């Protein structure tokens, strides 16, 4: 191969690998429709676990033909370990606020409220304890959406 082509080849391959990496990172773990708000869907986009804390990230998409408000209290979110039959609520800070966001109001430990225009999306995140029995999969409940079931923690 001609010497001036080598760096070009090298960088091209690196870019390809980076591209595949990015596409994977932007993936969706599971999607659930709303049982209240027509046209809204929630994607569970990422789960990370550190220091026995699960961080869940979601994206709510409006696929409908009009703007919709998505709204819930963090106190009503929970995860379930179906094997040990235990339920866990989001972690709460010393001021009584659930550790999640963004929050529109502090009411009752925090309220998520977002007007999502047609074709747009909005994200939120919430932290839970890792279930004590370290299950392989959990169920996740977010008010306004059908439950995310058998979400792998592997």
């Amino acid at each position, binding site marked *: 191969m001609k010497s001036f082509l080598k760096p070009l*080849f090298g960088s091209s391959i690196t870019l390809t690998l980076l*591209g595949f990496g990015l*596409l994977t990172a932007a993936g969706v773990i599971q999607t659930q429709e709303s049982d209240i708000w027509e046209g809204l869907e929630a994607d569970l986009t990422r789960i990370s676990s550190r220091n026995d804390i699960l961080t869940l990230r979601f994206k709510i998409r409006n696929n409908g033909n009009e*703007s919709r*408000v998505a709204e819930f209290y963090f106190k*009503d979110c929970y995860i379930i370990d179906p094997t040990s*039959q235990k339920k866990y609520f989001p972690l709460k800070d010393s001021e009584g606020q659930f550790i999640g966001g963004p929050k529109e109001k502090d009411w009752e430990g925090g309220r998520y409220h977002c007007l999502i225009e047609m074709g747009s999306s909005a994200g939120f995140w919430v932290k839970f*304890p890792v279930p004590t029995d370290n299950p392989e999969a959990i169920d996740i409940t977010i008010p306004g959406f059908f439950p995310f079931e058998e979400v792998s923690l592997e």
Partner: protein
Amino acid sequence: MRFRGMLLLLGIIGWWFWFWTAPSVFALEEDEIVIPPEAHQKAIQALKALGPERGAIKFSFKVLTIEGIIRGITGRSEKIQATLKELGAKETDTEYRIELPGDILFDFDKWTIREDAEEALSKVGEIIRASQHPAAIIGHTDSKGAEAYNLELSKKRAEAVKQWLVSQAGVDPSRIETAGKGESEPIAPNTNPNGSDNPEGRQKNRRVEVRICKGDC
């Protein structure tokens, strides 16, 4: 030779990705919310405070199964019922009636929504949105002041509640009608039997009534 061909193909895919696909992927990434760096530290503290069980609540599997089956049907109505109860709503055969005290909603002689009233109004918004049926907002005053002035004030207050519900709670404006009744429909006497002022009675009369139909009423 074949190896070089594959490398060339990989390179072409790489450049194609960065020119055509990467912008949309980056847009997806930008759309993600940012978690404040202190959140994890707070979570660690919260986890410690929970103890070894991490706040786990044990439940019966049978209950879970039933919950799972009926959640879509009753979960929503249970939440709405709880909110109605919190607001002290009264139920008739055709509608729910919620009375919001005027002194919480507005300052004296004003029709701008007070910040303290937002939590209650937000819950009213939740109910109206979930009900999918028409609603009416009716303003009332006490008997102090001129009748015509009170009528106008009650209309403005009803309209202010509607505007708040539309702009802040995402309620469809076409589903809400407003009216002002002034001092014409008291729910308590404005004066005592001896003719003296009855401040408690007048306070009850200063209110905004929200009526949410159970069907197309």
